[in-house]
């Protein structure tokens, strides 16, 4: 029975190749399916107006049909929009992590009476469709005179993302071995040092993951940004892109919109690519028995 049966083996080798081929075809189809709209947008942003509106569609523009005009037409003000989005998103993310992480740690480690109730509340908050909060928030913004102020966006963005941040980080902290913290205490770390030098470095993957989610949400959010901010120089990218208008109301400026979309998405793509390795990596490996 244990004699090697070479013909069968080579056959199975062939089969594996087929499987791999099928796999790659599947992967390619999937990627194409998901990214096609983005690719179309990218192509559109480089095509001259005639090529954009041409019928039949121009899928592969010739060199003479390519142009950078759409990008140039956006003007310097567009950098301002990007900066606005960056400020709002970055601050929301930082505040969200800075308040969510300690809360999550406390919920994971301390035996707080009524812990379950707190968790249920957190969960319920995260279930609200946030758009429904919008009218109430408008009143609040008016009351505090926060219109046309970054705070009008930063505070709600932080609040909306806090529940998820807390829940995700809490389950992460629960998986972090308690022995590590005890060991640190015996070694002589004070509580603050322990949190900063032992717990925080191990928490970075979870912080990055939840942070990126918050950042993406804040970067793409539209309704709040549209209503709470009216001054042109303070607009964020989604609003700015939506408000790009043509020379007349009958003309839709596909080119500039596509260019603005591409520019507005690039920072997100760069961000995710940068931190991708951090997200995937499991940094706690090796702390305890393998």
């Amino acid at each position, binding site marked *: 029975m244990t004699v090697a049966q070479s013909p069968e083996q080579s056959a199975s080798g062939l089969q594996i190749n087929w499987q791999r081929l099928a796999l790659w075809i599947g992967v390619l189809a999937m990627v194409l399916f998901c990214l096609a709209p983005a690719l179309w947008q990218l192509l559109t942003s480089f095509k001259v107006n005639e090529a954009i509106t041409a019928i039949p569609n121009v899928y592969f523009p010739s060199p003479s049909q390519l142009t950078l005009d759409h990008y140039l037409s956006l003007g310097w003000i567009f950098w301002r929009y990007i900066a606005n989005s960056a400020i709002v998103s970055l601050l929301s993310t930082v505040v969200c992590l800075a308040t969510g992480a300690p809360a999550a740690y406390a919920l994971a480690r301390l035996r707080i009476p009524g812990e379950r109730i707190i968790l249920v509340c957190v969960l319920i908050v995260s279930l609200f469709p946030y758009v429904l909060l919008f009218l109430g928030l408008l009143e609040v913004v008016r009351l505090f005179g926060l219109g046309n102020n970054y705070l009008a966006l930063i505070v709600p963005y932080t609040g909306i993302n806090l529940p998820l941040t807390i829940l995700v980080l809490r389950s992460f902290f629960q998986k972090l071995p308690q022995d590590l913290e*005890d060991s640190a205490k015996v070694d002589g770390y004070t509580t603050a040092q322990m949190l900063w030098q032992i717990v925080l470095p191990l928490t970075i993957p979870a912080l990055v993951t939840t942070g990126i989610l918050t950042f993406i949400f804040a970067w793409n959010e539209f309704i709040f940004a549209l209503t709470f901010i009216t001054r042109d120089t303070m607009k964020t990218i989604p609003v700015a892109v939506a408000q790009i208008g043509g020379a007349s109301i009958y003309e839709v400026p596909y080119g500039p919109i596509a260019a603005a979309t591409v520019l507005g998405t690039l920072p997100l793509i760069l961000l995710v690519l940068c931190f991708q390795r951090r997200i995937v990596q499991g940094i706690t490996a090796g702390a305890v028995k*393998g």
Partner: protein
Amino acid sequence: MSTLQLKSLRKQFAPDVIPVKDVNLTVEDGEFLTLLGPSGCGKSTLLRLIAGLEQPTAGEVRLGDQNLNRVAPGDRNMAMVFQSYALYPHMTVAENIATALKLRDVPKAEIQQRVGSVSEKLAITHLRDRKPSKLSGGQRQRVALARALVREPAVFLLDEPLSNLDALLREQVREDLKQLFEEQQKPVVYVTHDQTEAMTLSSKVAVLLDGVVQQLAEPSLIYTQPANRFVASFVGSPQMNLLTLKCEGDRAQLGPVGLPLPTGIGSPSTVIFGLRPEAIRLAQAGDSLKIPGQVFLVENFGREQLLSVRVENSDLKLRALIPPDQHWERDRLELTWTPEQSHWFDPQNEQRLETSSAAQPAHSSL
């Protein structure tokens, strides 16, 4: 010079969860105390109380003449090796070992020197720059040990440090541990549920059950004079035979044979009789005590055979360790032992019945 002392130590987590109840222990310099007990008996909790990771509900932990109850874990000058090793995953091996010294503002040169010599002693110098995730289980265990040794603390605490190693490695590390801690001449408290470790390593063993010290004695005494039925059954492998026997006058009835009760225990109506399997041998012509029985199970350990024997005319069972080269009949054999090797326990409180021939009480409170 330091003496670790536990005084009436108690820890209560919830009304019905009391893993440590009134524990009194003293560990001197150079003493190796092992806390031995089944899973969940409160060994780790006791160790954590000593380390200061838990606050006692009542009682004191003392080091020398200082009460440690209000002293933070980091200021107790104790080093602890955790069952899971708890190495900091984001630091290299060298950083892991050095971190406690850095926190205590030891000069850089001295840190280097101490880390170097400990690493050499434990043969982990070549691993200095690796992260814990790139180490094998045994290597991690040695790094965890190095982290404790490098501190030259007043007390060493070890929580089942060998339980994650395979059997062969465990034996080897056990020897190393013994040597290492003999050199240190500091109080060592070692937690284990493995009796071989307890027997071979320690100078004193505390057998724990339900948060109470059942017996505190040298390993040999624990084995030869167990203080009660639990200790008798927990220590020793294969397990001691423990039979509840009816008594008539000065004899306990084991199947067809009346065993003479030892002098000094009076004449109870029933008694628990204990006998280690290794104390039993096959009866020969000249033996006065002969217990006839039938073998119903044979387990072969290579070095010897473990026979399970049903005593004739009864449903009592005895297990006996017999050398493999001896001959016996499955259907009927006769067993014997020297009466001094038998143990007697009170059936009510399960304490050892002191026979007047025994020189010394077994559960002296050391």
